[in-house]
């Protein structure tokens, strides 16, 4: 079977707008399949865009930033800060006497601000009940598909210093 249609002697307008009802059923179906093919092309363009972004993406430079002093936050307490830029809200939780956890405060579902639920020892998003583990930021429940980006905290001279982020894609 030949793949391509033969060139037609009928003008395009006559071919596309036939006066015969039987022909119209064919034209409608062909136009719908053309729409489906163009939608498929759009999906491919999206995948190629992601590929290009991942190939040409440069690793962002994270500044070292003092978040708090060691005794500033009590055990089970929370401090909010911005890292790496002023419009990137993050949350620091003191989980033990000498253990801290810090994550981006933007829920990976729709960017609502997550908060620390002390009784359940987890981070919760109030918008759609997305719950995240305080241990590694992974999703425990709810619509989010990705873990919270983690802020790596180092203890230096009695200070908690944010040095970089992990799990941040875009």
């Amino acid at each position, binding site marked *: 079977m030949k793949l*391509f249609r033969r060139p037609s002697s009928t003008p395009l307008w006559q071919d596309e707008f036939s006066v015969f009802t039987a022909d119209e059923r*064919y034209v409608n179906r*062909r136009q719908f*399949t053309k729409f*489906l*093919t163009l939608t*498929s092309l759009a999906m491919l363009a999206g995948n190629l865009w992601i590929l290009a972004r*991942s190939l040409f993406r440069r690793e962002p430079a994270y500044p070292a930033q003092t978040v708090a002093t060691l005794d500033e936050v009590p055990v089970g307490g929370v401090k909010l800060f911005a890292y790496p830029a002023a419009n990137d809200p993050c949350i620091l939780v003191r989980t033990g006497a000498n253990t801290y956890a810090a994550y981006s405060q933007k829920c990976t579902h729709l960017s609502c601000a997550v908060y620390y639920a002390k009784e359940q020892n987890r981070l919760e998003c109030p918008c759609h009940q997305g719950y995240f583990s305080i241990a590694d930021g992974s999703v425990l429940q709810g619509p989010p598909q*990705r873990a919270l980006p983690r802020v790596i905290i180092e203890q230096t001279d009695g200070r908690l210093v944010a040095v970089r982020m992990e799990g941040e*894609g875009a």
Partner: protein
Amino acid sequence: MNIDPRQTRGLTAIDGAMVLMIVLLIVQIWLLSATLESYLGGHREAALPGAIISAILFLACLGLYLFVDRVDADVRRG
């Protein structure tokens, strides 16, 4: 009303191709969303296989469209 059996066969072939295209498109939409989630989660290694499979699915859709176009031309113009 007499229906030309050739036309009926042509319509059945086109309908079958359309259903297949819709299935392929659903798979491609799922693939795009999964690749995007993976990329946003910091896993960039999924981008290349995602793009290759998406290209294969698009080529399959294009092939089916050319098939529909051909059947349409054959049945209507003889």
